[in-house]
């Protein structure tokens, strides 16, 4: 490859990165508890996230490498699919959480972020309420093994761990 082509390619990549660079702001303080609560945003959800254990799990993701590894896991080995594209995360201000329900016997199980009052922080721990959906007992469901998950983005705040509860208040997973 000629230097010219290499230079052009480098410039092209740099241009792609300009929005990220422009987004850089002077270092800000982490949000304090008295500030508004950290925003929670769902990034991705699926019923097929590749977990082979039946137990739920929660993965705290605070760098880009971990995120890539998690995406690789949850996207699985689909032939012909496009790489998963997610909104950019600024790990200086955000973390990601991968919440996994564990392997389930059928479809119809999902984890969802549907409430607005879903996050509380006490004593350095964030308590996040999610919809832990399972099919009604008498529902007709597809007889395919599933492993639901939900990938979330959270603003950093005065917490160092996260606990996941369902709407009934049952603790499902913690970091």
């Amino acid at each position, binding site marked *: *490859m000629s230097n010219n082509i*290499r230079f052009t*390619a*480098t410039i*092209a*990549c*740099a241009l792609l*990165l300009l929005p*990220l*660079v422009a987004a*850089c*702001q002077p*270092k800000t303080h982490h949000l304090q508890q008295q500030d508004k609560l950290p925003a929670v945003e*769902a*990034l*991705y*959800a*699926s*019923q*097929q996230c590749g977990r*082979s254990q039946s137990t739920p799990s929660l993965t705290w993701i605070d760098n*880009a*490498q971990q995120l*890539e*590894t998690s995406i*690789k896991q949850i*996207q*699985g*080995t*689909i*032939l*012909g*699919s*496009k790489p*998963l*594209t997610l909104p950019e995360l600024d790990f*200086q201000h955000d973390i990601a959480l991968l919440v996994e329900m564990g392997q389930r*016997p*059928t*479809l*119809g199980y*999902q984890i*969802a*972020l*549907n409430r607005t009052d879903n996050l509380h922080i006490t004593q350095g721990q964030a308590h996040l309420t999610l919809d832990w*959906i399972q*099919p*009604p*007992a*008498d*529902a*007709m*469901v*597809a*007889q*395919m*093994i*599933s492993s639901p998950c939900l990938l979330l983005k959270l603003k950093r705040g005065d917490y160092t761990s996260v606990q996941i509860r369902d709407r009934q208040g049952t603790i499902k997973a913690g970091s």
Partner: protein
Amino acid sequence: MSGKSNSVVPRSGVICPVLKHVLLLVSLLGILSGCFDKSGDSSPKGATLSGTVSSAAGSVADSDINDPNAPYTANNTPDQAQSIPNPVMLGGYVNVAGTGYTGRSRSSGDRMDFFSISLAANQSITLNIADHTTGDLDLYLYKDDGSIDLDNPDNMSRGTGKTETLTVAEAGNYIIEVYAFNDPDNPNDGYSNYALVVGQSAQNTAAHTTGRLVLTDPFVPGEIIVRFRGDNLNSKSNQTPTTRAASLGLRAKAGANNRAMLLGLGDLQARQASFRTLGITAKQKDADPLRQFRSTDPEKQLKMDTLQVIKALRKRNDVLYAGPNYIYQAQLEPTDPYYKFQWHYPLINLPGAWDVSTGAANVIVAVIDSGVLLNHPDLLGQFSTDGGYDFIRDNAISQDGEPGIDNNPDDPGDKAAPGGRSSFHGTHVAGTIAAATSFGGGGIGVAGVAPGVKIMPLRVLGVGGGTGYDIFQAIRYAAGLSNDSGTVPAQKADVINLSLGGGPFIQEMQDLITQIRNDGMVIVAAAGNSRTSTPAYPASYDGVISVSAVDINKQLAGYSNFGSAIDVTAPGGNAARDINGDGRPDGVLSTIGDDSGNGIKLDVYSEYQGTSMAAPHMAGVVALMKSVYSNLTPATVDSLLSSGKIVQDLGTPGWDNQFGHGLIDARKAVDEAALLESPGSNPDTPFLNVSPSSLNFGNNETSLSLSMVNGDSGELTVTSVNDDATWLTVTANAVDATTQLGSYQITVDRTGLATGTYTANITIVSSANTVTVPVIQQVGGAGISTDAGYQYVLLLNADNGSSVQQWAGRAQNGNYNFQFNNVDFSAGQNYLIITGTDQNNDNIICDAGEACGAYITQIQPKTIAADDTHSGLDFTTGFNVGLQNQSLSTTAGPLRGIAIRRLPDKQTP
């Protein structure tokens, strides 16, 4: 270069995708590093990082690569052939003189690499060409009898694509040649890295794939199918096929302009004229003439010449397609590219069934499910004329934007919120039953069990599942009974597949099932995934064929229901394992969609597991039976099942509560159907069917199972089972006392064995035929005298991706002991350690075909900080020869994306 940022350089090549993303992110971090708060850190300066890079098992490097720093031993002739172990993953480089990067062989050329190897019968040799746009590499195989004749190879693969593959006909010592073809029209091309793979994966290579030109494939010697590009037609000249063929020294035998023509080679004199016209005899710039193959066998000679002409035709701008005139014989094997991953079809003896029938278009299978992606390229044209129906009444479940029920059974997905991915369960089920399948070359995606039949898509499942009422309506529609749609199909379905379950017994549903069964419809349902014997419905209704699930070893899947209602079993898969070593999970592979981005991507496939996947195997086989014997009734199917005539008996002899009457056997099923259609037409042709066809214990497995069944009807007895290795033991596990058919346990004992690779054969002799199962195992982490070549171990600044230090050197007993001194952690730096080879000497490691590794692994590279451990940083390097190199995905070509530039100053060990 030290201290500078790495270049981000898109160009051809492949790198581990995860590592690529990590490095891209590292680069991003570097650009954004000015935003970061670099707090003061009193971490020590001058730290030492050390560790050992070990070579992945079976890794071998070509001994004469372009990198002048690497050790050199010529392997340019058969006499110089480099000895390599089996199995092996070898990274190499060849180039025609004057092509490629500056380095050891740029000027003089390194056109041929020869390797000496001992091969087992039926092993595959795969050459992955790193960049086939710069180097058209070919693969030749010679039996090593001490007098190698380079003009007369025993087998050759001279395609024009990204891979060349050969299959070994018989065990013995061989010479493998990798050869750089030089296109006379593109004299600057003729170089590439490559990865040569032997025996590691049990690849079931699909014949006649695009670009493939293999001498031993069955094709008519001297005949070529050609289609010329229409835009190059000179209409004013009024060229006829005859004149057009004559202009190439060929003879037109059939066909016409603007469609495929059948052309023929002439006699020896005419062939030489054709060679001259096509430039085959042109001299290369290094005065090396293109190879002329000569054999004393006239037919073999003609086949060699045919391939030679085809390869030359493919280089011409006016040729759209050129290929052999293949001879197709029973037994039919699909040529769809992903068929080789559908282990679940040979497991039920399906290829044998396709010899009898691939399905009739007047047979309809209703798929009562989540709907189907009607525009999936593997399902277009596979639907019944009525078009199906959407019976979901609840809009919250349906989410198709069309209130209530409607006549559009297209599946809009079942994700609960945007940003996720839907299952497209019904599409997967429909694909298993009747995905479009090609038996005559080409094809897309996957194969279906009964590709000739039609699917009636009926949508009843959406977000969170569905309701019994909607399913009730769909069943009535399929049966041609009045229903809420107000319509009935012009032709009712012959088979109903229900890959769903839930809810209690309902008498009305039982009555409906009894009614439509009495009317001749066969109903197949998934037994359920709750690993319980509690009856699940609809599978447990009287009159429904309840299907449990087995894995690739014909063991009941861990999730499968069992119990008194089970009638039969079929492949449901276990996606957590890869027993056959094809690089894919052992789930059931079929059609799906991907709606995780904008819209729905349709040409997508994945492995799912469950009794949902088992049921459509049975439904497809019933459809094949119905195609052969139109008077097939549910009672007939029941009778054939209970008699054991259409199953492979598993578990307790006869019926048992795990497998029912046994594993459905498609060949037996269509044979019995043919016998019913024409009594006396189907003589018994028993044959021994052994699966898996090969066993790969790697260096971890100690016990695997082998299944031996009668592939057809008639009496068959296993008379002996022998192996030829002291470390191998074959034990009867669940075997019929009379026939000795059944399940055998194969164990290996590595005690006392030296590090290395071991092969053996298990020979099973039956009253009909003899089957040999090759076995391979490895002892120790590395093979005999193997390593991953001359490595460049780089210390990268994890914050900005720049190369900080480099260790370079050759292996000592397969290991590379590296050390980085004076590593600066004073400003809170983090580091990554990456290693790789540079066979093409472009100063960039980890290109396609080059070895690559990262601490801890490529999948999970770990940053090293001041307070982390700084010694014992051990990891593995090896050649990346996985599926990513085979480019089965729809991407047009490989991209390296990130260049990991090695440093010019190298330390020596």
